[in-house]
């Protein structure tokens, strides 16, 4: 895959506006290049704010979801490319998988690379993967795959069944009360300006009664609930089932598994999932 090297993280506003513009034509076209940006220093003040919003203790080591946040502007930039027929408008973040290969310090200088590919048929459109990697020098320290469903796009072929994380209804172990300003607070630390998270009218335009919290906040909050017991290196796999409306109250449950944890963010009574997450230790 060809690389396009950027000298700095692109500002989100313009790229986001481009990525929001719908495109015509059903056949999926995706940029064939990846975007690379090196010498990225992490902003400790923004990291501290991110940790506060998501519930992480401020440590020398960062959460893997924070590394995802750092790659997010590159996702937007890539989807805003002329070669991309998929726009963020109408695309739904359906699942995510990330692997932290080793603890990453907040003061490590990073190289970020993001590519897009793997278009495949889905009953409601097409799925694509935004694939990210974070490196320290030449060493990959984090890999992530964000899978989006674009309802306006089409890919030839039979839709493949989508693997779903198993869910058993159960009594939540915790209730999280999500305030109405949570979308704004997460926007401020993540840089994701999508109005469906902060604005009632925008949310309604996309079919939601109220603004919805970012899926990656829910992901981060679930990891934060496990923080003291997370291994040094692990894969976190997440499936987003149903958006969480703001303000709102959701349930959380976690159970240990052979190599990690299985967790669910549910409605209040634990009968329906909003997000399912598994954590599995890797390597070493």
């Amino acid at each position, binding site marked *: 895959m060809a690389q396009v090297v950027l000298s700095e993280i692109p500002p989100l506003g313009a790229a986001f506006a481009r990525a929001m513009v719908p495109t015509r034509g059903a056949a999926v076209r995706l940029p064939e290049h990846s975007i690379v940006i090196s010498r990225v220093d992490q902003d400790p003040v923004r990291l501290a*704010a991110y940790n506060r919003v998501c519930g992480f203790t401020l*440590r*020398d080591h960062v959460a893997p979801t924070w590394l995802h946040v750092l790659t997010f502007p590159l996702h937007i930039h890539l989807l805003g490319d002329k070669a991309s027929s998929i726009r963020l408008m109408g695309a739904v973040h359906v699942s995510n998988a990330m692997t932290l290969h080793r603890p990453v310090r907040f003061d490590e200088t990073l190289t970020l690379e993001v590519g897009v590919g793997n278009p495949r048929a889905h009953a409601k459109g097409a799925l694509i993967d935004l694939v990210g990697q974070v490196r320290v020098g030449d060493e990959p320290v984090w890999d992530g795959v964000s899978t989006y469903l674009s309802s306006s796009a089409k890919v030839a072929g039979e839709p493949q069944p989508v693997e779903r994380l198993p869910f058993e209804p159960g009594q939540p172990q915790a209730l999280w009360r999500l305030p109405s300003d949570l979308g704004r607070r997460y926007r401020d630390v993540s840089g994701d300006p999508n109005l469906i998270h902060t604005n009632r009218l925008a949310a309604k335009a996309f079919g939601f009664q109220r603004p919805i919290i970012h899926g990656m906040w829910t992901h981060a909050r679930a990891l934060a609930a496990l923080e003291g*017991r997370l291994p040094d290196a692990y894969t976190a796999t997440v499936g987003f089932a149903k958006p969480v409306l703001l303000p709102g109250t959701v349930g959380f449950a976690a159970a240990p598994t052979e190599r990690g944890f299985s967790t669910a963010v549910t409605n209040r009574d634990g009968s329906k999932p909003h997000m399912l997450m598994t954590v599995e230790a890797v390597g070493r």
Partner: protein
Amino acid sequence: MNHDVVVVGGNRVPFTKGGTHYAEASNHDLLTAAIDGLVARYGLAGTRLDEVAGGAVLKHANDFNLTREVVLSSALAPETPAVDLQQACATGLETTMYIANKIALGQARVGIAAGVDSTSDAPIAVSDSLRRILHAASGARTAKDRIGILAKIRPSHLAPVPPRVSEPRTGLTMGEHQAITTKRWGVTREQQDEIAVASHRNLARAWDEGFFDDLVTPYLSLARDGIMRPDSSMEKLAKLKPAFGGPEGTMTAGNSTALSDGAAAVLLASAEYAEENHLPVLARVVDAEVAAVDHPGGSDLLMAPVGATGRLLARQGLTVDDFALVEIHEAFAATVVATLKAWEDADYCRSLGLDGPIGTLDTSRLNVNGSSLATGHPFAATGARIVPSLAKMLAARGPGSKGLISVCAAGGQGVVAILEAV
């Protein structure tokens, strides 16, 4: 005591001035860093300890279970119970004695004593008047009643109230109290500045010698104590203007502790537990005493440890000369000088009910690796900083070496304790 209590070791984050390196860190963050560092050093990840005792002086209302929440964020087993204690600047020594006493009685075998404070993230409260109005409004039966009550709010009620640094009963700040003591005991500027210079130079030497390599874990890019000035000198300190005691005052920002951020933790165990689990042992916790003075009645606010020291030494049959090392917390340099003068003052000691003077300290044994002036003084953390450092110094001097710790605290209180190398 049924069981010997031993200091296994300790860990702290580097201390620093409030509003600097740890400006974004809360008490929770700082204490988690200190305890996780201790857990890593002694291989305690996933271990259920019998108890963790911690505390902070400046604490947010929603941090009522601060230490338990920190345990849950840490790598310790979530089944580890915790308690919050607070005894002003002596908190870290009082948590040490709380855990040590439980171990001595056989109620616990292993535990962590800790303390933390952040002046960067100090709680700011609403005014008394506003709080009363809000409580009344939340108890109102109808919306009309509620609006009526809320209408009483005046702009002056909305001014935030920072934590009080003054003694509630005297209205004097700690510095103002110490200024009275400083004058009363005839403590000179030179005596104070000498203590301050020694504190910085001793601390810097200890860092250079690697003394803190197994006592401190770097946090947020800070690897050494941020307040430390290795190049401190009498000449530089002499240039500072008085901070307390008026224009003729002798106390300056250089010989008073700075508002600090930091956290410290001590691992304590019974001698049997340490042996069974192959843990190192630095020193035994021998005894301790807490004391208070009548500061609203005019006594010296920060001199309560003097009476405690006299009674503790009498109980143990020890004299000042029996101690290889003495740690007197440098709330102010003048506190240390006045404390040592008081030890030698027969009349003062008798006024405390002691038989006679405590004795004269050979100051080459005092705060040999620096103290709070150079290290900083995150209030509740200081005791938990001193205990493992002193235990390590005593261990290096060989079995039987004894050390005394004296920590003064707000409210006219103080805690003293004795450690002995094993």
